[in-house]
């Protein structure tokens, strides 16, 4: 299978859905991928089983602020600089590219960079969605070493990080982001071909392509009635329903009468009913007509160790029923959970220590008179 300029829009839309409201807007990364495909031709998508066992597989993505990326759109050589450092350290050529994070901008960047390097893209990724922290990966769960890791910018300014685990990698990368101007290209959790099948979320690229054209039936459709704590009032067939969405940098939970309809690690996507575009957490505003879609995540995230790293409690959501992999895509009735009981503990989103920059409340409308003088 190949991704070319024709299939890019579906792939990019699927990546946006898998962003679960975060992961950075795909607009710039999709344009970068379009130029890369236009300049270098289609990218071959390979299955983990097709990889030579000793082949070096390089996960790539960008870390930092997507607002910076809207201005500093990036160069053409970031993946070249990353590859050079990795090859120097391993002594063998990199043979394939993997998306560190399929959700949001990074899914498209991995495609762009595979095209620029002339390498295949593995049909898998590190997260099966977007997560705010670099160590929230399947590779981390499977004991793949986070380092050597490399960060660089378009000019080839480079930092190599050695001898740290995933948590420390996150700390050091965040610390280095400021001198990098808020955003940098990275590679980490480099693997050999034989490790990919057991240490990544499988089928992510084909899943993004599929979600780009075909989505599960929505949990609810309605209008955004409140934005501080997001409330959606059902419309049409959902008239009378009231659904609350918890969000950090991603949408984390969908609740109806206190009972969860979807909870992280479930992917939660909001789609603008008018344009069909994916709405991210920064663009939630009053009056938008949206449908809310739940897409199950990779099964590994629903295991005990998966939930510890990226379940609701990792995002400060307490008192929620542990999501079950078996949740239907389109529940006919809200599933009963402990949260449905009267007096159930209130769900709260805490800011995460050492996490991504705080989610902004979206573009704020100036209040009348507030700024006049």
């Amino acid at each position: 299978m190949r991704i070319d300029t024709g299939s890019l829009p579906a792939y990019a839309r699927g990546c946006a859905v898998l962003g679960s409201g975060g992961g950075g807007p795909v607009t710039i990364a999709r344009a970068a991928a379009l130029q890369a495909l236009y300049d270098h031709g289609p990218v071959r998508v390979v299955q983990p089983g097709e990889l030579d066992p000793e082949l070096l597989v390089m996960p790539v993505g960008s870390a930092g602020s997507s607002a910076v990326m809207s201005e500093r759109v990036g160069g053409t050589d970031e993946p070249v600089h990353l590859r050079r450092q990795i090859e120097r350290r391993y002594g063998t050529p990199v043979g394939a590219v993997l998306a560190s994070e399929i959700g949001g901008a990074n899914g498209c960047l991995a495609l762009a960079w595979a095209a620029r390097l002339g390498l295949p893209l593995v049909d898998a990724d590190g997260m099966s969605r977007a997560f705010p922290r670099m160590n929230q990966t399947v590779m981390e769960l499977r004991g793949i070493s986070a380092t050597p890791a490399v960060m660089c910018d378009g000019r080839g300014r480079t930092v190599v990080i050695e001898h740290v685990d995933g948590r420390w990698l996150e700390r050091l990368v965040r610390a280095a982001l400021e001198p990098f101007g808020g955003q940098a290209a990275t590679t980490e959790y480099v693997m050999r071909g034989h490790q990919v099948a057991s240490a990544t979320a499988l089928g992510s690229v084909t899943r993004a392509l599929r979600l780009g054209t075909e989505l599960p039936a929505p949990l609810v459709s309605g209008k955004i009635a409140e934005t501080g704590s997001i409330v959606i009032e059902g419309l049409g067939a959902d008239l009378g329903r009231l659904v609350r969405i918890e969000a950090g940098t991603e949408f984390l939970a969908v609740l109806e009468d206190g009972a969860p309809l979807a909870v992280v690690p479930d992917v939660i996507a909001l789609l603008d009913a008018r344009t069909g575009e994916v709405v991210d957490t920064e663009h939630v505003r009053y009056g938008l007509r949206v449908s809310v879609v739940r897409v199950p995540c990779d099964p590994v995230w629903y295991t005990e160790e998966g939930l510890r790293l990226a379940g609701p409690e990792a995002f400060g959501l307490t008192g929620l029923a542990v999501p079950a992999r078996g949740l239907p895509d389109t529940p006919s009735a809200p599933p009963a959970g402990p949260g449905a009981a009267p007096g159930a503990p209130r769900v709260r989103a805490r800011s995460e220590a050492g996490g991504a920059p705080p989610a902004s409340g979206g573009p704020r409308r100036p209040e009348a008179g507030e700024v006049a003088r």
Partner: protein
Amino acid sequence: MKAGVDIGPTNTDAALLHDAGAVLATVKVASVPGDPVASVTAALGRLAAPPLVQVAVGLHGAASAVAGRRGLCRVAALRIGGQEAQAIRPLFGWPDDLRRAVEAGSAVVDGGGGLDRADWTPLDRDAVARFAASVAGRAQAVAVTGLFSPLDAEQEQEAAEIVRAELGDLPIALSADLGSLGLLERENATVLDAALSGFAADMAARLASALAPVTAVHVTRGDGTLMSLEHLARHPGLSLGSGPASMLRGAGALTGLADAVVADVGARRVRVGALAGGFPEEAVAGARIGGVPVGLRIPELVRVARPVEPAELAEAVDRMQPGAGRLPLVVVGGGAHAVPDGLHPEHATAAGAIGAATSPVGGQYERIVRLAGRADLPAAMEAVVEQARASAVRAGADPLHVRIVEAADTPLDYLPGPFVRLRARAAGPPARL
């Protein structure tokens, strides 16, 4: 006595107003196809006005020139950003026909900035000169877009001087004058601004001679203010979005409301926008002109097709509200009778012309700054306010009567560091000549 004129695709409206703002008369004439200036003189002729002091005109020709790919200059697009800004070339993704009509070469030269002073790379002056030389004879205008120029526009100005030394006196558009962060959208707006410079210079000259001896002739801008004909010739992109903007302003003038949702009912569609603090609510993202995403300060609009489906219109109105049912709805435009809801002020069919006549000459200035503490805010804001005032005066406002209508500081939580967007808008009556 002053007049406003609003040139639509089918009809041209004109309104005669007392200096204090009361509407004395309105007329509607058929627009002269392809000749906006003739439409203006026809409408003003029908108005049978006594000698006028001021005339403000909503031209709206800029958007149709882009949409129709007519009368556009060939533009050399220069981007300053080196390897930080190569992943997407200038004009990449533009509709082919628009690109063919506009592009006279493009280049990305080294230089450009970042969020921090230490992030800046020196401008590659030789590369700028080489690029300018390479487009000599082909380019009729130049668009310069510097990486992070909304924080510091110095390299754009430096590049413009080099281009001028190489190519002589031709229109040069600088991105920091037009938009905010978001390199590609700002660059697109800048290229369109440069592409419109021939159209704008021609319009300015013809309007001035057609309306002589009236000297205070102004045209509408996308932010709901006015600018002089000289300013139009220098910054034609500022007139993009001016049609909806003056319609919104007119709805405000006719109702006395500073905050409202406004439905402008035309022959084929309804455009729903909002007034906030007396000026149009601006599109946050997603504005497109001629198929190109642009970062311009133009009104946010939701469009609804006619015949009007009431539920669809109600949804559009709700979408423009800041919260459920908070603001009144004002219905204006030639087809206002098709929408029974909301306020229907007198003269609503000429709201665009009235908005043009009653709007002040405006200017604005925006910079993103790193502020260590709130204590540094007043000094930083004062500098921005002064620039806004100067911008309004350059656009033709009376320096003695310019006042600041907005001075806002917005923390940019999504940027790493204590960044604040400072923005000031100034407005005043036209300078008397």
